């Protein structure tokens, strides 16, 4: 169905694709596996006509593509589901499907289109309601709206770019069922991911990319995780995380009935209570948008608690500023490097001092001590192996993994009593992920208490000494890892209540 031959694409001196071949037969799911920056996205942009290749040919259904536009790609039968959806939240499903679709005509026929959506939805088990407002739908449902859009536009080959990244385990299973139906109907699928388990589960063929080159092709039936991981990063990274059982110390962070209402008057956190002990990791699973960012921000002092209390080591910090919490030994790694935890335009040295610049040794009486900035930067760059051109290099010139090392070095380097880590491995490749995890484990073993928030159930299960689930602003009762039931946690993440009530309180 699709044959890509010798695709090359360079951005300046960066060779994003170097002679990549990719075949997708009809009725098969091809997994495109690779770390961040391995060239997956570039290859798909070339295919979809968003960027033009420097060299190489694309033949789709017997027709050659050259210097085509995304519009032509869609017309020829390609459908791309981006990681960030291209939907209008305020519109209904039907209106979103009609949007920008020539077939919808000049006179809108919403009822007819709604009928089409229902038929398609039934055929592929999508279960979407044409009349619902997209903004009200959960993430997994919106993805299905994108899929129905692509199918109705005649997509024979669907490209799914990291489709599982924001889904709960049951939603992922649902998506896989939909993908199987699509395959049965003879459509081809390219499944882009860096999650090995998922690729092995759903794909027929797997193509691994590294540094813009194909490093391996396997049939999914014959491939193993460690095999794929080695092809992906060029070395072994799947070595089990070394996790000694430890007896935690006394409670160091006590949270009692913490609630938060946002500026729009929405209740984001509802009476959250738990205590965190020295030398343990409390891992909280939950699908994005269930209040994790609010909990992390409220605890770190970036947002205000509307009710309840927080006590750090005997000190009431409920109404204390972010800076004072930091001084009291509370560090925070937020999820968003691009806008929150890092200032890309500023230097590595400035970023390493970002949260302490107005205290000694970085400044006194309003004057900065540049020497202290430089000394701290040199020290941290060495300790944490940050690969940068120097302390004065702008942070944006570093790779994602090294940017996160700056954040980790700043927040963990000061040996905090409590660390709040919100998806600290988000968007990192396996090597960098491993680095961050190792640093967290070292902090725990040194007696630090860590609240680890993540939407990845795997990470939560691997890291947590105790595990809890967040759903719609409520936190379930934390249970020891040994007692954790994966299926039940998955169901709780999806909001299906079970016998241990999700609304339950206090640890």
């Amino acid at each position, binding site marked *: 169905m699709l044959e890509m031959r010798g695709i090359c694409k360079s951005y300046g001196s960066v060779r994003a694709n170097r002679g990549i071949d990719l075949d997708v037969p009809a009725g098969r799911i091809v997994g495109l596996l690779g770390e961040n920056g391995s060239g997956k996205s570039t290859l798909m942009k070339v295919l979809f006509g968003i960027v033009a290749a420097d060299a190489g040919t694309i033949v789709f259904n017997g027709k050659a593509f050259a210097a085509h536009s995304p519009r032509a790609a869609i017309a020829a039968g390609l459908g791309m589901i981006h990681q960030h959806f291209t939907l209008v939240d305020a519109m209904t499903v039907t209106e979103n499907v009609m949007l920008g679709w020539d077939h919808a005509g000049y006179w809108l026929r919403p009822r007819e289109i709604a009928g089409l959506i229902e038929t398609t939805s039934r055929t592929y088990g999508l279960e979407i309601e044409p009349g619902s407002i997209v903004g009200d739908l959960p993430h997994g449902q919106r993805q299905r709206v994108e899929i129905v859009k692509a199918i109705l536009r005649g997509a024979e080959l669907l490209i799914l770019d990291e489709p599982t990244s924001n889904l709960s385990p049951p939603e992922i299973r649902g998506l896989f069922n939909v993908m199987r139906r699509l395959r049965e109907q003879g459509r081809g699928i390219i499944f882009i991911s860096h999650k090995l388990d998922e690729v092995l589960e759903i794909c027929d063929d797997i193509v691994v990319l590294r540094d813009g080159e194909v490093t391996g092709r396997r049939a999914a039936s014959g491939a193993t995780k460690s095999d794929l991981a080695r092809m992906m990063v060029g070395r072994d990274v799947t070595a089990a995380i070394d996790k000694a059982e430890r007896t935690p110390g006394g409670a160091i962070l006590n949270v009692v009935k913490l609630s938060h209402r946002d500026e729009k008057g929405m209740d984001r956190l509802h009476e959250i209570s738990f205590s965190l002990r020295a030398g343990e990791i409390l891992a909280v699973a939950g699908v994005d948008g269930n209040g994790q960012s609010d909990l992390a921000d409220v605890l770190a002092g970036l947002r205000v608690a509307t009710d309840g209390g927080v006590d750090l080591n005997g000190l009431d910090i409920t109404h204390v500023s972010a800076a004072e919490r930091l001084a009291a030994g509370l560090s925070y790694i937020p999820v968003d490097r691009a*806008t929150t935890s890092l200032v*890309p335009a500023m230097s590595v040295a400035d970023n390493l001092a970002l*949260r302490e610049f107005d205290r000694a040794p970085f400044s006194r009486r309003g004057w900065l001590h540049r020497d202290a900035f430089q000394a701290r930067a040199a020290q941290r760059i060495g300790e944490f192996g940050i690969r940068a051109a120097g302390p004065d290099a702008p942070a944006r010139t570093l790779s994602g993994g090294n940017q996160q090392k700056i954040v980790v070095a700043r927040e963990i380097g000061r040996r905090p009593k409590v660390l709040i880590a*919100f998806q600290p491995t988000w968007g990192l490749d396996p090597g960098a992920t491993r680095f961050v995890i190792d640093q967290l484990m070292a902090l725990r073993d040194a007696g630090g208490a860590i609240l680890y928030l993540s939407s990845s159930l795997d990470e939560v299960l691997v890291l947590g000494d105790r595990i809890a689930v967040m759903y719609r602003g409520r936190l379930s009762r934390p249970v020891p890892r040994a007692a954790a039931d994966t299926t039940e946690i998955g169901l709780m993440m999806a909001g299906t209540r079970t016998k241990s009530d999700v609304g339950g309180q206090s640890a």
Partner: protein
Amino acid sequence: MTTAERNTGDSKSGSPAAMLDHTVRLLTASDGLRTFLLACAAIGLALAVTGLLILVAGKNPIAAYWALIKGVTGTTGRFAFALNKSTPYILAGVGVALCFRAKVINIGAEGQIAVGAIAATWIALNMLALPPVLQVTLALAAGATGGAAWSALAAIIRLKRGVHEVLCTLLLNFVGVLLVSEALHGRMGEAGAGFPQSPLLERSAWLPNLLPDTDLHIGIVFAILAVIGGYILLWRTTFGFRLRVMGASPKAANYAGIAAPRCMLGVMTLAGALAGFAGSIEVLGVHYRLIEGFSAGFGFNAVAVALIASINPIAVFPAGLFFGFLEAGALAMQREVGVPSSLVFVIQGLTMVFVLCAIGIGARAQRV
């Protein structure tokens, strides 16, 4: 944080305020040397295009530019005049650049200059009993305070009522300029003069001269101090660090424990003080009285100067000189070659357009 939240903040466009915002963000992200070369190229291009216009008008562009240069450097007096012309641009430009650094889009220098000038004039007219040094010092201080207050007013409206600073600074410009007319038609005006102006100030309230036999007053010294001070403030103080983080990312500023409202009020007040100071220098050093319309768009040109300088306080100095010198040489060009002096405004405008284009193209190249 949801993906939707992550996406916002990136894709604003449309309104003029948002476009200015976008430009400032591009400038904050660009680096020094490259921007300097781009600015030089933009100036060259602007001169070339204007040269074509002169050619079309049947004059010799080389002769015109030569006359312009001679008009500035021909004699010490002319050079002194050019420096005086540049002073308000540099002073107000530094303040605007600092605001833009913090992503505070203050375009209210025009009104701040006007209010500063009123305050300085009032002191100079009414404090005649003091020794001359004190009269001048007090008048300058009053000018700075007046400008600062006018700017702080805009900041407070922004912070308390949520009106975007582009709107409140812009609108307060009109009010400030009209206040000058109001004052001059009232008690501050010169009785019997056919024109809205204040009485001539006593010599004791005039700014001291730097060079004998020229008009050069000490304003340029203050301008240089402002440039150096702005640089030190931005790179060597915690306040400057706060401004830079705020400008680069409001979320990161919040995360770093920076109180953005206080910083905004601080930088606006500072910029207002510099603009008000520039206004009082015009009164005490150039006209020796308050005249209606004395600030022929100084405040708006200061915004252009800050943008051409890529909101870098040090670069404000050459950019301000460029604007001042063009205007100082314009009359000579008109006199000697017969090219209308308003052509320098074409050069100024084109330079700004080209600088902004170059920065935009550079940013696009960076993004890929």
